[in-house]
């Protein structure tokens, strides 16, 4: 292990506010940005930060997610001593098969896995955020502060702070207080759900937490408060840059639209911090003789012979002659047939918008989610 830090990604979320997008796949496997899945971001961040071993804690309906992350070569995490390991709940000699009871419990149930690598530091990540971050710099910060735990934080507008876990820290970054969704926030530094712990200390605390009947076995609700109560050295590491939790259809659409902006902060084209993903074997995008493109983010295997304006098209999306796609996101393999019009919509994978139909509206407040084929009414 290059920097003696092992990463664990919590990827068990159902993401039920993403509605039909997550009935068959877990939230971290949801598509984003034309060719990516959300979990590509923490995994690529790990690869680029020199982390060799990543455990992915899955739970709900995870066959697709499991297969997806198991192919560690996508993120270069397939060298001699490295790997991406899928860790669902499992039966043990001394315990029956049971679901993970909380974020901390998911780690506790995998202490044996972590011990195999004997890491000095444990990095805990969430599988459903979009951002680029060098965890090795966070680790340097952690070491310099001689911290017991370091929590990445991001400034949020103070009026929204009550939706987050808020850190109150001193000038050095030492955390004095942690409040989960405070009514009257004292600071605007929200936890990003990214933690570095000294493994030995965390291991001890997790073992205590597992048998604590009053614990909900959660990092934010139980482990961090207990550490603070025990006067441990907790530090807030301030992150600057693009960070998005795409919890709803609207925010997922918006995060995709962000990519159309000149100089957007995520900058997926930056070769020094590439986000790696699945490789698809297909022709590059083909634009037919009638294609009209105006502000668009388009990837391999798309075929376009209609109008695409202000939209993001995922692998294999097709826009037939005379069709119009405006202010919309087409997920993989969506077909918009001749003359159909899609406006302010997020069209789920494999959906066919039949010839001549219309979905979405320029005037709607919310983004229309199109999760089933659109047929002409008779």
């Amino acid at each position: 292990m290059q920097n003696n830090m092992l990463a664990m990604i919590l990827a068990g979320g159902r993401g039920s506010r993403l509605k039909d997008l997550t009935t068959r796949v877990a939230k971290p496997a949801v598509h984003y940005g034309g060719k990516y899945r959300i979990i590509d971001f923490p995994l690529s961040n790990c690869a680029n930060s020199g982390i060799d071993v990543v455990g992915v804690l899955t739970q709900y309906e995870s066959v697709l997610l499991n297969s997806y992350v198991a192919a560690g070569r996508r993120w270069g995490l397939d060298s001699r001593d490295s790997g991406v390991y899928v860790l669902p709940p499992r039966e043990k000699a001394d315990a029956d098969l049971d679901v993970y009871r909380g974020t901390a419990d998911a780690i506790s149930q995998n202490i044996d896995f972590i011990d195999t690598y004997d890491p000095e530091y444990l990095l805990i990540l969430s599988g459903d955020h979009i951002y680029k971050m060098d965890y090795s710099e966070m680790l340097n910060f952690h070491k310099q502060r001689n911290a017991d735990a370091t929590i990445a934080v991001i400034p949020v507008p103070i009026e929204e702070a009550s939706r987050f876990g808020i850190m109150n820290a001193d000038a050095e970054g030492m955390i004095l207080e942690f409040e989960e969704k405070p009514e009257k926030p004292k600071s605007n530094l929200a936890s990003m759900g990214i933690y570095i712990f000294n493994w030995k200390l965390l291991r001890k605390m997790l073992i205590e937490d597992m048998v604590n009947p009053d614990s909900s076995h959660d990092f934010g609700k139980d482990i961090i408060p207990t550490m603070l109560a025990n006067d441990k050295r907790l530090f807030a590491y301030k992150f600057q840059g693009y960070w998005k939790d795409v919890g709803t259809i609207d925010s997922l659409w918006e995060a995709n639209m962000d990519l159309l902006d000149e100089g957007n902060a995520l900058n997926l084209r930056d070769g020094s911090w590439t986000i790696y993903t699945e490789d698809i074997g297909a022709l590059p995008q083909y634009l037919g003789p009638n294609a009209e493109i105006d502000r668009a983010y388009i990837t391999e295997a798309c075929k376009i012979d209609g109008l695409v304006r202000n939209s993001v098209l995922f692998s294999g999306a097709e826009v037939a002659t005379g069709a119009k796609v405006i202010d919309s996101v087409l997920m993989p393999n969506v077909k918009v047939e001749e003359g159909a019009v899609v406006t302010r919509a997020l069209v789920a994978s494999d959906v066919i918008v039949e010839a001549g139909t219309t979905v979405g509206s320029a005037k709607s407040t919310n983004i229309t989610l199109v999760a089933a084929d659109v047929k002409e009414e008779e």
Partner: protein
Amino acid sequence: MAKAFGIINSSANHINIEGMQKYRPIGAFPFTGKYRVIDFPLSNMSNSDIDRILVYVRENPRSLTEHIRTAGNYNINSKRGHIQVLFAESNSASDIYNTDISVFMENLSIIERLSFPYVVIAPNYMVFTQDFDALLQQHVESGADITLLYHRTNEAKERFLLSDYLKLNRQKGVEGIERNRGTAKERDIFMDTYVMSRQLFIDLVHKAVDYSSICNLCQIVAMSCRDLDIRGVAHRGYFAALTDFKSYFDANLELLDPAVQCQLFSPQWPIYTDTSDFCPTHYFAGASAKNSIIANGCVIRGNVENSIIGRGVVIDEGVTIKNSLIQAHAHIGKGIHLEYQVIDKWAEVLHVDEIIGSPDNPGYVKREDII
């Protein structure tokens, strides 16, 4: 599992694609934006369950060696299979000694240790798809000593002028292999693709060496037409021989036709290449793109028509590009007008107003040049 190993052969030294070939062998040339020419023979072999492949690289090995280094990209089991590059190791006094036979001879001990009974040999400068396993089966069932693949054309007067053709009898027996000199309309163009037993291949290598130090594989096979049962098998589908600058240019632009795309690319016969990890292509307001193939990672603010754009190309405001190939990482600066051009990798076209070529005489801007 196929009972054959594969060899991807280099073009012989009479073939030269001006400009681009200075930097890499034809196998490493870009094709349709994201592929390289060698991806086609490699994918043909991989899809035919041939997973032990020797690649002869005659010159400038770096780019090709880089490109094919990961067998896994071609869906080849990395333990069981292997893509191995054969270099011309002994620097000969003159390029005429630099033949495929001399490299096979140098590496004969490797070939002798391979336990496959058959070998399939395909060229690195032709683009086509072919199920080699089916071809091998046909070869075995026919009882022929050597099976050669050919493509029938009725444009032999104008095209394939640097290729050979097979003289076939009515039983598809090969009576000779000769250079196509454009004297007839219909020809069975030889696709430089051979199937034979490993032992016969080894014998032919020895025979060629004994005959002449500059004899190549095609010549020794041609000379063996009387002694051996050599048969032709017809290929169907898209076929391009990249033998000079114009044939390379034309073959690329031909792929802008969706009907041609379907011939070469089908979900049942995937063409593999290395991963680029480029983000999608970003079109800004004011950009336009019509009848074009555009790879990922581009930033497009100008206008593109009837062209093929490689990975990571940057096209600034007011640019017009027509009937051109823009290779990966090139940069076309504001307001420039290009027609019938091949802009090589990493080139920057910044300080000119326009470069206009013609269908018969497309232009070329060198790799890494700034103009």
